[in-house]
């Protein structure tokens, strides 16, 4: 059976009218809203599944969450599909309007809002398919790290200054950073709260800061106060040489007498000390600072008395990439300008005695 060109045209026209239909828009928006409404409560009461949603982009988070609990997660792709279809419907309306712009230009504000919504949907999809979220990364001043997923980029922390109020509460975290691409500095910036470094879709911002044990201050009768850290070498008055091979902030002895690290926080600190005596013999052993000086050291006259730990401050930086961020910014601008124009045109139409919806 042959289809006449007229029939095909009618079918296409009906299909286009369906795609632009306001009722389809309302059905899709309502479906998305109802799914998200229920889903948001499921999300709130299941932090084990949804807790990582903010730490990863959607394309990384969803497969993992789906494999764990598809019955709790199904609403995410389903509502996403509704929003995408809704955005397609909005796009069709926009195209339809553009075809009639000469007679309907007064609706420019409203259709800029439509454009903004479409751009934001695309930007979200783009960012959540091709971007990444990482961190927080702990970085010590003077060191650099590789940017995840972008091996040509490295980030160097030049300096870090936490700003505290008189009560000791953090006010800001001032990071002087350099972003390097293939070894060449492409951006230098001061990164602090609400002032991230934004470059090529990358956004680098401070999350927090911490302190890591760097060493200890000791008192030694012949030498007074000395600082010892991992790798320190000290020549004593009697010619013996003391070296610090390891420093563990929190350690314990296993059943077989081996020393193991328990954690990174200061707990039961231990130093592995090597003493090279004048007769070239060496002693090596662990000094658990809370337990007192090992007998071998006191017999050798090395009366090291721990005074206080020495900490080094590090910064915690979050590094995300959202290739859709510029598109999202354009979408936001469209929304904002659209709202202003729509307000203006609404009151102009009312002043002229028109109903705004006609």
């Amino acid at each position, binding site marked *: 059976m042959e289809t006449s060109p007229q029939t095909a045209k009618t079918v296409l026209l009906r299909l286009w009218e369906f795609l632009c239909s306001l009722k389809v828009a309302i059905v899709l928006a309502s479906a998305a809203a109802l799914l998200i409404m229920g889903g948001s409560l499921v999300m709130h009461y299941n932090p084990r599944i949804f807790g990582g949603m903010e730490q990863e982009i959607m394309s990384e988070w969803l497969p993992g969450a789906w494999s764990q609990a598809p019955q709790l997660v199904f609403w995410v792709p389903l509502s996403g599909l509704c929003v995408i279809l809704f955005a397609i419907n909005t796009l069709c309306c926009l195209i339809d309007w553009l075809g009639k712009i000469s007679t309907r230009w007064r609706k420019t504000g409203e259709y800029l809002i439509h454009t903004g919504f479409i751009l934001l949907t695309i930007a979200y999809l783009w960012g959540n398919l091709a971007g990444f979220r990482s961190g927080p990364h702990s970085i010590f001043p003077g060191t650099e790290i590789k940017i995840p997923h972008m091996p040509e980029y490295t980030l160097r922390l030049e300096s870090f200054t936490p700003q505290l109020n008189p009560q000791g509460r953090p006010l800001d975290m001032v990071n002087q950073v350099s972003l390097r691409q293939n070894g060449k500095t492409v951006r230098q910036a001061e990164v602090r709260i609400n002032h991230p470094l934004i470059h090529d879709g990358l956004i680098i911002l401070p999350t927090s800061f911490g302190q890591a044990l760097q060493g200890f201050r000791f008192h030694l009768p012949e030498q007074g106060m000395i600082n010892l850290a991992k790798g320190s070498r000290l020549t004593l008055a009697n010619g013996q040489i003391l070296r610090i091979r390891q420093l563990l902030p929190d350690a314990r002895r296993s059943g077989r007498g081996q020393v193991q690290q328990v954690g990174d926080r200061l707990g039961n600190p231990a130093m592995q000390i090597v003493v090279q005596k004048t007769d070239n013999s060496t002693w090596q052993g662990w000094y658990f600072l809370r337990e007192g000086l090992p007998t071998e050291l006191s017999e050798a006259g090395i009366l090291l008395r721990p005074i206080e730990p020495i900490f080094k401050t590090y910064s915690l930086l979050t590094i995300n990439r959202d290739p859709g*961020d510029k598109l999202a910014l354009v979408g936001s601008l469209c929304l904002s300008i659209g709202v202003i124009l729509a307000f203006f045109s609404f009151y102009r139409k009312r002043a002229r005695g028109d109903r705004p919806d006609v």
Partner: protein
Amino acid sequence: MSKPLLLLLFALYLTATIGYLAHLICRRTLFAKIALGLIFSGVLLQTGLLAQRWWVAGYMPVTNLFATLFFFSWALALIYLYFELRYRIRATGLFVMLLNLVLLGGAVPRDSTISALIPSLDTPLFSLHILFSFTGYAFFAMAFSIGALYLVQTRLQTEMLPDLSTLRRINEEAIFLGFGLFTLCMVAGSLWAHIAWGHWFSWNIKSVWSILVWIFYAGMCHAKFIRRWQGSVYAWLSIVGFGIVLFTYLGIGLLLESNHPLE
């Protein structure tokens, strides 16, 4: 904030509400005029108190439940004045001011101390986000009141209330303005989230429900084109919409945990 001034403000709005009630019962315009004068004085006082708090704090002080209720109440009173002066809706004020009394009544017993600003809130984007958010909410509250009155008027057909056509126009206008302002609130919030947390959309429950509010009112801006939905259905939608707004504003902050806590 001075408690006596806060109580004076509450008394002004309460007397205005009683004035509108007297206007409805006695059918005398004088009571409505007195009520309007009281609301005008209340808005002036509330603007002064808000400005004083802003001056003292050094930032827009809308960071806890007292402050948000106070700001919401101010925005609603101001918006009511706008509609009253534009449309002379008079007795409609009874319902709006009752809602305003609930908001202000919720604020009065709370601690009005201005707390130190959390560093991440120290940006003009936060001020814009808050400003647009609560003015948007206030328009939605206005639409809710007008929607409820529309339903009352369909039954009573009284001359004391504006006719159905005017109520419908005001409702549509409130929804449209509220939606526009709430859109600007979402834009400011997204920009702020991007520079503060590194992503412009968050799956936090408050953000998700804000999107729901936006979708709902975007739908309402379109629903007025559907002939069958005009009038009563639209009025009911205004009431449901405000329910979603209240859950987003109070329900999530008080019942659930979010990154927009209410103290």
